[in-house]
């Protein structure tokens, strides 16, 4: 029993992590979001026809809704859909699976690098219970897969200097694979490799052959991506989200007036953004953005991990750690891609540095435990340990309530809640109607346009991808949103005109219809988790 203690503990930790990632993951988050549904239908299309919904054969980037998604999650999802069918579970399975698989992998990584079972177990335990990792593993989110590949890539990168050439190939393979998985690693990987080579120049000099093989492999594997970026629109997303287009920078900092010092201003603005990742609010209070802004949700670390993080930093600095410089470069360059975007700081896009942050926290936790044990009096030890455990329990209860109650209520709308039910209604009742009109405007506070309801219809009606690729589709020629295929029309509802149409099913938010609809006209009301109406399904009465 004692001999297998580590193995049994690791299995239990992995099972716990798996449970936290899997339990009701098709119900919470409350709906497949726009990215998930887009990946899902593309994967389904590729699985059945070998082409995406635009008819491109095994594309390197998925055009999707114009945001040119990375291909790996889509291709992996195709396997999952093949295994489980076209449903919510299949869409989210890959992240649950990889999010769980990363736990024992992280254990092995820590154990092989540090040669310390205790640290490896504590680290994998923290990863298993990490709200940051759990949250993104419960949905289809490409950065979970990317973080797994980054972990393997960097691990093999470290091993490259002690082991054979296979590690060189494997490291290059996984690091480049990451670049095909999510947008941020496209910047992170080259910056990480170049910085590591510069700061470890002396070490690398003695492994010149391996470096040449490594770099050549990276270049060869990366070439298709470079091609896609330059010629197939994959670079569109990058130029769209650059920090120089940031609204705050343009409108508030530059005030739309330009001077000689604009570029240095941009650098200092970037520095401000970069340092904001140390914001305790982001780290401990609401970094996951699961609740309404300004309230207490969950950060990338639990609040009780604050002392662990501080002690961990000190321990990390003081202790002799193998490949310390690579760890530091991993952390510092890992923030870089997200920091140069014009979006709000985003915990999800930082998942590839989760292992290093969790490592630091684990180092701090062990230091903290040693400190408790070093207390001279038993009652002191008891008070500190009990007090700390009590705080941790309170934090866990809050985390549970955030996941179970506050998150679906706060973010149902941003997860496109209600579209699934609407699409299922269409699936079940479409035979009775000549046309189905879906108004893409929604919103609690006021109407805004969502351009993806057609994807929900495609997904939940299991619309034949081949038919969709080849049939005629009509788009609006002006700025108003209009999209039509088969009997489905996605456009704004104008009830003064539409109320006279016979045999047409209308779906829209409360903003699409007058308040005084005739009795019996509303066939079904779809609600968000917070109780607000999301959509009305209406058929005009004559």
């Amino acid at each position: 029993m004692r001999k297998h203690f580590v193995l049994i503990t690791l299995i239990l930790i992995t099972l716990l992590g798996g449970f936290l990632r899997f339990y009701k993951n098709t119900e919470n988050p409350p709906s497949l979001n726009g990215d998930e549904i887009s990946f899902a239908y593309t994967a389904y299309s590729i699985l059945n026809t070998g082409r995406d919904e635009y008819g491109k054969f095994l594309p390197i980037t998925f055009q999707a809704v114009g945001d040119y998604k990375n291909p790996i999650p889509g291709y992996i999802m195709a396997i999952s859909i093949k295994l489980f069918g076209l449903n919510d579970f299949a869409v989210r399975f890959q992240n649950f699976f990889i999010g769980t698989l990363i736990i024992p992998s992280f254990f092995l990584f820590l154990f092989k690098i540090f040669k310390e079972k205790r640290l490896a177990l504590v680290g994998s335990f923290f990863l298993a219970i990490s709200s940051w990792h759990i949250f993104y593993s419960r949905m289809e989110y490409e950065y979970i897969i990317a973080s797994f590949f980054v972990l393997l890539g960097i691990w093999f990168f470290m091993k490259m200097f002690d082991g054979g050439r296979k590690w060189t190939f494997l490291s290059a393979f996984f690091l480049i694979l990451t670049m095909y998985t999510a947008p941020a690693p496209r910047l992170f990987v080259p910056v990480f490799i170049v910085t590591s080579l510069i700061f470890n120049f002396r070490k690398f000099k003695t492994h010149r052959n391996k470096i040449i093989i490594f770099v050549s492999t990276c270049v060869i594997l990366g070439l298709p991506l470079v091609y896609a970026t330059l010629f197939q629109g994959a670079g569109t997303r990058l130029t769209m989200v650059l920090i120089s287009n940031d609204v705050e920078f343009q409108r508030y900092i530059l005030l739309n007036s330009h001077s000689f010092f604009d570029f240095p201003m941009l650098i200092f603005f970037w520095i401000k953004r970069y340092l904001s990742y140390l914001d305790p609010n982001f780290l401990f209070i609401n970094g996951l953005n699961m609740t309404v802004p300004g309230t207490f949700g969950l950060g990338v670390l639990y609040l009780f991990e604050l002392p662990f993080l501080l002690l961990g930093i000190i321990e990390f600095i003081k202790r002799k750690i193998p490949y310390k410089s690579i760890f530091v470069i991993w952390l510092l360059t890992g923030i870089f891609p997200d920091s140069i975007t014009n979006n709000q700081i985003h915990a999800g896009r930082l998942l590839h540095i989760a292992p290093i942050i969790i490592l630091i926290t684990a180092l701090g936790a062990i230091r903290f435990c040693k400190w408790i044990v070093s207390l001279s009096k038993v009652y002191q030890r008891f008070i500190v340990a009990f007090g700390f455990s009590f705080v941790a329990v309170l934090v866990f209860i809050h985390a549970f309530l955030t996941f179970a109650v506050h998150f679906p209520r706060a973010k149902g709308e941003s997860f496109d809640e209600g579209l699934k039910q609407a699409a299922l209604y269409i699936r079940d009742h479409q035979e009775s109607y000549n046309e189905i009109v879906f108004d893409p405007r929604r919103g609690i506070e006021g109407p805004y346009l969502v351009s993806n309801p057609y994807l929900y219809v495609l997904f939940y009606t299991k619309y034949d991808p081949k038919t969709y690729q080849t049939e005629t589709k009509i788009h609006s020629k002006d700025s108003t949103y209009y999209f039509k295929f088969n009997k489905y029309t996605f456009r704004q509802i104008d009830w003064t005109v539409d109320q006279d149409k016979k045999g047409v099913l209308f779906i829209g938010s409360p903003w699409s219809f007058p308040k005084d609809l005739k009795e019996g006209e509303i066939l079904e009301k779809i609600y968000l988790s917070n109780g607000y109406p999301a959509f009305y399904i209406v058929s005009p009465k004559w």
Partner: protein
Amino acid sequence: MKTKKQISLFAGILLLHYLFLTLIQNNLYPIHFDPKKLFFSDLIGKSLYVPQWLFYILEAGNLILLWIISKKIFNKYSLITPFVYSVSPWSSYLVIAGSFYIYLLFFILVGFYGLLLLKYKNFLGALLISVAILGVGYSSLTLLLLIPAVLLITVFKIISFKDLKIFFVIITFLLFPLFFLIQTHSVAFRNILDNETKIFSDPGLLNMVNNYQGAAQQEGLGKLAKISENKYLFTVENILLKYTKQLVPSNYFTPQEKLLNFSFTPPILFGFLIPFVYGLYHLIKLPQRKVLFLSSLLVIPSVLSRNMVDLNRLIIFAPVVIIVISYGLIELIKNKKKKIHNIFLILTLILIILQSLVVISDIQLREKARFTKYYEFEQNYEVGKQ
């Protein structure tokens, strides 16, 4: 001869600071804070304010005090501290806006100098500490409340009670009239206390608690919410968050928190972050770290304010940051023969020069427009209460 040279260099630093102040004044004045009444006058219903001109004089006093404090700590590198302070835009913005905390900073520096003298010149040290305590105690309720905490920790951690017993007697005697006033004007005292400690009356927090508990109740998890999402826990969490937030470097070295709520000028130039991190890294290993931890009490007025970080209130913590930067810079200079230290020094210098140029250009070009955009009017020029 050496002293003369130091004095003339210091005069140069002073001049540099006032030139910077003039630049801001020319571009931004008459921007100002709502003047703050001195605590004792507010208590008795009178309106006694620190006049605007006094801030300019006190600012010179602050620089001089930083210099003499620095002399005690850093010896021959003493000019570095006032230099770092003088090229940091933080205090300059607050001086032209008439910040009450510039006035308090003066007394805090006097007190700190007194503390340094205590070991050698017991009477002068005790006298200066007494002046400082009386100055802040009669002027600001928040700092008056902080005095016992600072004294207790000082006695336990830094200086023995024996060294301080003279001035304990003096202080008690001199603060007695103030306590008498508080006793006789308890209603006014309560109002001032409520105004100074906004953190405990945050309606947003109570709203959040009600929403959370209501939502959990609907899901049948009301009991769990009562245990872990109540106002006491959230208040503690909020205080902890705010306290930690005050100590984040981005507050000081980037415009993360806006000076006077609108500026894009950082409180301290970013280039100084390098010596700051270096200095902190080394200071933590020294016994003097106790003083460093103790000094973090100075962030409490900012913690108690309505804003997440109040750079106006936080100016009283500025000397701590400046001293850490100075220590780091001095260590870098001392070790400049080592390649990496030299690189850090050069990088610091380049960043400081570059950012100074950017900041000066930006102040002239856009700061006033930013103020107008943020406050959406120009007539009053008030940048909020203190």
